[in-house]
């Protein structure tokens, strides 16, 4: 079973396909869960604590906006953990964890330059493309050791 970082890291379709094909999708909600349900954190934060943008300095400099560093504190460690990546090139409406495109650019860059196998895809627009979409993900995941 490989750990696969998906982009967008909140994609229902990619997370589902990776998991149903027997691998583990690395997704932002898991990182959020660690923070919002951790009983060790007193008064659990709404989403993340003000400490996260500081932790995000590992991925982006201090002159990068705080919202990017905060998001990177969630997503950066997932990229580090990944054995492979699947990237949607035209992901459409992105909000929340994926609502900042500067973060999204950095996420794609880090996935692509990590030196792991990466599959680039576009959302399907018809049945033929959808079959190609699923088949390529399947072939890609089967190729991972």
């Amino acid at each position, binding site marked *: 079973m490989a750990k696969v970082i998906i982009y967008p890291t909140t994609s*229902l*379709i990619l*997370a589902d396909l990776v998991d149903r094909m027997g691998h583990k999708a690395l997704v932002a909600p898991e990182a959020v869960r660690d923070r919002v*349900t951790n009983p060790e954190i007193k008064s659990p934060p709404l989403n993340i604590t003000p400490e996260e943008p500081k932790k995000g300095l590992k991925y982006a400099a201090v002159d990068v906006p705080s919202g990017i560093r905060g998001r990177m504190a969630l997503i950066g460690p997932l990229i580090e953990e990944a054995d492979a990546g699947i990237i949607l090139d035209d992901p459409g409406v992105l909000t*929340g964890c994926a609502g900042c495109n500067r973060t999204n650019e950095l996420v794609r860059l880090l996935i692509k330059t990590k030196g792991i196998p990466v599959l680039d895809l576009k959302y399907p627009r*018809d049945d033929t493309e*959808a079959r190609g979409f699923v*088949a390529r993900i399947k072939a890609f995941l089967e190729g991972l050791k």
Partner: protein
Amino acid sequence: MRITKYIITSPESEVLPSDIAMRIYGSQHDINVKETCFGIIINGEEDEVADLIKEIRAMDPTGIFIKDRGFPPGDLRRCRGHRGGGARPGYYMIESESKLLPLISKALASEEKADPGPKETETIQKKRPISIKKLDEIIKEEIS
């Protein structure tokens, strides 16, 4: 560790979110269930959720989609009733992707029948910009 998942049915699936909820209520699993307009949210211990997901997927192997959620169901920090209306931001992505689920469902079904289909790149014919010379000719033609 307790985890939370969204279970979302394809709009064309014959299984309704309420069917899934009833199945869970009738099962032995210690799982919290919350029905929403687009699917259901389940919350329980990791292993138990994993077992349950297998059962749920079996109800419609190609028409039910599952993803993680950070907040437990009904969490006041996310509940729109408590937070002054408006969907939480991630909702719009689920709504946007839900529209594609029928396509993915059909593709998964044909995948099960080992029908590979053509490569997607072959179906896209890109238009290239015309040459400057050609454009120049057209301009002259149009304004003459």
